[in-house]
């Protein structure tokens, strides 16, 4: 790999042109999807202006190709002695420089298009403001791995030379942080297919149902527009007239939606987490998963902020757990950006936890503060608002005993979920960690090392000021975590304790 001269500015892999073109094109289409609706508002658009529309579209596509080609040509990167350099931009040229020491993670990934074109995506993450993050869309696989190890090598060289001037024990740590080349990686965990199916089954099936519903809603709207356009009949009236007579139809429909939603959930989970592997790389972990879109992510010990364990009753039966790791970032992390490790046994979780935190997971003992029962009213009012909206909608759409009883059922369900949520919500803390428990039917534990907290806040709305309760907001470098409705004096004690810990422990947060 050393024979590749990285100091010459070079382009992406040739196939990159097509990749850039297709992704840009897809982006344009997604941005302008609403144009598809135009024919529904105006009759005869195609008959009157058909040729012009096709010519226009053709021109736009050609223009897009030229633009994509130029952006491919202008996208040049190289490694100079001190930093990774990148030039890009067609109209506005920009030059990005990332010093080696600021490189935090290097991720390689392949989505389906990249697999077809036989290239890999290359991402450099930095700890900084997020603007300097670099994404190279298309590289040859060998070149990408060579580039990755070259960058890691440079970073390591730098850190070793820096550390040799300071304390020696930090040197070991720094060495470990950088991660060593591929040979020393050891496979820690591999998700087999049976467990993967279990993960799918135990996933929240409402995600799949939601996807299905969204799809149906879209399809329904589309069909209605389409059908009423050509035939003189009102789908909505027709459906509305028939529904009350056929309750069996509805129950079958609901059952069908649930079953299909369930299957979709399993399928998406299997696709997403196919062949999940966790590789141990000295102190760091490398995670790989996905069938069509292969994702490769690095969990760094120092960057790890929140360690989240999720279980639910089905997962308990299967004896599996999911772990979601949040790493330091310049913005609040979305669900998607957390690194998900699914289908782990308790033993795996232990292993991962103890090597990330140097604390034995099973020995953990906490003191607890519980969310007070008044929290129920907050959830209750929220669901009340939601139900009011639904009732109004039902009143105007189809107002009959079925819809009302369904709504009442939903309301009772929401109340039940709220009760569960209040019961589960608490915060545990000990010398090193806080552990926040949340959830309703499922349970989530968010564990944070106290010295990694950035600031602590007590937040009390006007009601809480009168009845002496407070929310505690913990700010971390990957977003905030809130514990709701603690007793005021407990919340104060907690804040004092956490602040005392942050200030007295002589450890840097990263």
């Amino acid at each position, binding site marked *: 790999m050393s024979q590749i001269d990285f100091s010459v500015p070079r382009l992406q892999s040739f196939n990159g042109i097509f990749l850039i073109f297709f992704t840009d094109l897809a982006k344009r289409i997604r941005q302008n999807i609403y144009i598809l609706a135009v024919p529904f508002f105006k009759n005869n658009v195609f008959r009157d202006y058909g040729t012009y529309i096709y010519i226009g579209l053709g021109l736009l596509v050609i223009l897009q190709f030229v633009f994509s080609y130029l952006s491919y040509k202008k996208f040049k990167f190289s490694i100079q002695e001190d930093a990774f350099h990148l030039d890009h931009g067609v109209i506005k040229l920009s030059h990005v420089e990332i010093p080696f020491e600021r490189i935090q993670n290097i991720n390689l990934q392949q989505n389906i298009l990249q697999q077809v074109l036989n290239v890999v995506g290359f991402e450099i993450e930095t700890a900084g403001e997020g603007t300097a993050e670099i994404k190279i869309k298309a590289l040859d696989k060998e070149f990408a791995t060579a580039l990755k190890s070259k960058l890691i090598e440079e970073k390591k060289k730098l850190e070793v030379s820096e550390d040799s001037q300071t304390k020696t024990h930090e040197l070991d740590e720094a060495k470990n942080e950088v991660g060593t080349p591929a040979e020393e990686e050891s496979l820690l965990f591999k998700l087999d297919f049976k467990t993967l199916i279990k993960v799918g089954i135990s996933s929240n099936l409402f995600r799949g149902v939601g996807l299905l519903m969204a799809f149906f809603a879209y399809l329904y709207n589309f069909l209605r527009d389409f059908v009423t356009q050509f035939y003189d009949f009102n789908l909505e009236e027709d459906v509305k007239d028939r529904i009350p007579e056929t309750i069996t139809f509805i129950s079958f429909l609901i059952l069908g939606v649930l079953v299909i939603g369930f299957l979709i959930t399993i399928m998406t989970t299997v696709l997403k987490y196919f062949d999940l592997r966790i590789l141990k790389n000295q102190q760091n972990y490398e995670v790989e998963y996905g069938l069509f879109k292969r994702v490769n992510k690095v969990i760094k010990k120092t960057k790890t*902020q929140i360690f989240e364990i999720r279980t639910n009753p089905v997962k308990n039966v299967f004896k599996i757990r999911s772990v979601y790791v949040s790493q*330091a*970032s*310049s*913005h*609040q992390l979305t669900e998607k950006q957390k690194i998900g490790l699914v289908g782990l046994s308790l033993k795996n979780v232990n292993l991962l936890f103890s090597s990330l935190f140097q604390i034995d997971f099973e020995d953990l*003992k*906490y*003191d607890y503060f519980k969310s007070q029962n008044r929290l129920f009213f907050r959830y209750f009012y929220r669901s009340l608002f939601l139900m009011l909206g639904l009732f109004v909608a039902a009143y105007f759409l189809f107002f009959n005993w079925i819809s009302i009883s369904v709504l009442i059922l939903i309301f009772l369900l929401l109340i039940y979920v709220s009760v569960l949520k209040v019961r589960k919500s608490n915060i545990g803390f*000990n*010398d090193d960690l806080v552990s926040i428990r949340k959830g309703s039917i499922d349970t989530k534990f968010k564990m944070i090392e106290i010295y990694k*907290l*950035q*600031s*602590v*806040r*007590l*937040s*009390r*709305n*006007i009601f809480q*000021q009168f009845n002496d309760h407070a929310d505690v907001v913990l*700010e*971390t*470098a*990957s*977003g*905030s975590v809130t514990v709701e409705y603690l007793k005021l004096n407990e919340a*104060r*004690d907690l*804040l*004092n*304790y956490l*602040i*005392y810990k*942050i*200030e007295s422990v*002589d450890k*840097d*947060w*990263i």
Partner: protein
Amino acid sequence: MSFQNLALDLKDLPDFKTVKLEAVQKRYKKLLWLNVIALFVPLFTLPIFGFLFDEIPSWISVLFLCLLSVIFILRVIEVEKGFPIRKFGIRQYDMIYQSGFFHYTETVVPYNRIQHVEIKQGPLSRLFTLYSLRLYTAGASSGDLIIDGLDKSTAQKLKAKVLDKTTEVNVTD
């Protein structure tokens, strides 16, 4: 409550509530008022114009006016009642800030978690020669601490204090 797990008693820890807090500049309230006026005068003219046009049903204007009045009154209460609450305090290792009448928050930011400090002045605050101090922590901007309505010397003193602490901690590391 049993704390056998912790090496120290929670009651013995320094309590952030005992710190004497300082208020921000009095003239900052005028600026807050100016902000409210600048926001609500145009908003109030909208429904009044609505009455003049026949195409807009008058109940819409009335509803809008009512809603706007409620929001306006709440906002006024927030400014009037909330202003005396806006206070900051300095301890040896952290800074404390509290604000808000309807939503009262107390934030504590340790100096050794502060990434950098900024003193800012908007066009309106230039009119009143007021400054705001922003303490940046790592991560999302929700964790940053912003203290508005300081005069120049206080803002600079606070900045120096924070910077001094952050660097001092770094040196001793």
